[in-house]
């Protein structure tokens, strides 16, 4: 049984871009408000990113996509698909992708679809883009992972539910900054986290969150991909995992036989929180920002419900001339505006203003 996913035509990332909104609230501030600070020495992250009053999935996607286009150096109208993975699309019915395509001059000769799969909607979009380009149906496709995550006030999710966007343009390997060597997807029906239609906040099935959810799926996707490709941990320059907090990816990396050094560059959770669909993809953009030609990068997204997509890329010489054409990931990480809980509550629409 062939389990490895490999395109017929060699395919890779020809452009990548990040965007992180500048507002930040510390986990310490949230702890002080809801728990009197009693868990202050054991917080899952330092702070989380959150959108400004005029930002949402559409606006964050556009800036990440603009950065990807700057690096790719292609004409936007050559792109034949805009796949946007998110669990916080601003419309229940009306595609985020058409707005992105219209603003960036990708429209009208393109397909556009919004995908959802918990926090791995972004890696799902990447896989769909690889399929389109790798089959030869299209020369370029854009995949986005972007979210502005929701959490009920006082829920422990508030510590980590963050916002961010990453865009990847897939194209022929000859133009790529990183060529795809192989991918693998692993899913099971697992009730670890969900949000019903019309509900504002998600529910988590606590006992399913760790071992039956995150660890089982992400370890299965990485270990199977490595087995199929006959790779060992020492063959990998950087490992990027979905990061709902800092502890989970560190533990998973250790179990899989990787060193913490291999994980370090792409581990952004302490400063950003869990940026959901953009989490693993932003880790990848951070790794690409400093990668050397020949580096092999292993990335795995994880989405509740549950599943994990793993990808193996090899960086090419083109990274050296392309990466400085747009702001890097850390430009956005360091661009911060600290806010208090009241401002956070206002920005996240958690204050009931009495309107309909």
């Amino acid at each position: 049984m062939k389990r490895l996913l490999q395109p017929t035509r060699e395919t890779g990332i020809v452009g990548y871009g990040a965007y992180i909104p500048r507002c930040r609230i510390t986990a310490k501030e949230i702890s002080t408000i809801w728990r009197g600070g009693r868990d202050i020495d054991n917080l899952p992250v330092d702070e989380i990113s959150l959108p400004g009053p005029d930002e949402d999935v559409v606006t964050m996607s556009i800036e990440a996509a603009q950065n990807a286009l700057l690096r790719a150096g292609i004409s936007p109208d050559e792109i034949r698909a805009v796949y946007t993975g998110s669990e916080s699309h601003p419309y229940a019915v009306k595609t985020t992708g058409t707005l992105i395509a219209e603003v960036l001059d990708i429209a009208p000769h393109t397909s556009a679809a919004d995908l959802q799969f918990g926090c791995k909607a972004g890696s799902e979009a990447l896989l769909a883009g690889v399929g389109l380009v790798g089959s030869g149906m299209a020369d370029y496709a854009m995949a986005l992972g972007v979210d502005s995550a929701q959490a009920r006030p006082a829920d422990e999710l508030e510590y980590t539910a963050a916002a961010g966007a990453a865009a990847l343009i897939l194209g022929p390997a000859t133009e790529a900054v990183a060529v795809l060597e192989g991918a693998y997807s692993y899913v099971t029906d697992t009730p670890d986290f969900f949000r019903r239609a019309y509900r504002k906040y998600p529910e988590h099935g606590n006992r399913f969150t760790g071992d039956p959810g995150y660890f089982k799926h992400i370890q299965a996707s990485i270990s199977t991909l490595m087995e199929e490709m006959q790779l060992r941990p020492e063959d990998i320059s950087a490992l990027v995992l979905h990061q709902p907090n800092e502890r989970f990816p560190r533990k998973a990396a250790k179990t899989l036989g990787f060193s913490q050094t291999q994980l370090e560059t792409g581990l952004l959770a302490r400063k950003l929180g869990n940026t959901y669909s953009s989490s693993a993809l932003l880790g990848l953009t951070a790794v690409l920002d400093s990668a050397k030609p020949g580096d092999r990068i292993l990335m795995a997204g994880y989405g509740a419900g549950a599943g994990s997509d793993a990808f193996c890329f090899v960086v090419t010489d083109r990274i050296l001339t392309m990466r400085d054409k747009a702001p890097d990931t850390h430009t956005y990480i360091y661009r911060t505006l600290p806010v208090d809980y009241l401002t956070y509550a206002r920005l996240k629409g958690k204050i009931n203003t009495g309107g309909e």
Partner: protein
Amino acid sequence: MDLPRIWRLKSQRYKLEGSQCKSCQKLSFPPVQVCSDCRSQEIEPFRFAGKGSVYSFSTVYNPLTQFTEFVPYVVALIDLAEGPRITAQLTDVKPEDVSIGMKVEMVIRKISEQSDKGAIVYGYKFRPPIK
């Protein structure tokens, strides 16, 4: 819901698309059908690059209803690099940090929402350059 207006203005709002007179090359934003200098009707679309500087500004504390969620916010007169002076909201900057002559760049942001069941209007705003 003013959907026709949202749809009609999308090139202006999404792409900062104005016009250029083919006769005397005068640039305009928003686009015009007749040149205000030479009266020519030979007009073609012109895309502005989205770079400029603040000519003047004011901070809004008493907004129209649809802008309530952004208060306080800054509305500025911006001199585009290509010439025309336009009005736009500033974003990602505190009112006290805005100054005349400050360099700004265009970004796409949420302009307003027509209630929680209506359309969301997106369009240009300006912010201090990120890089």
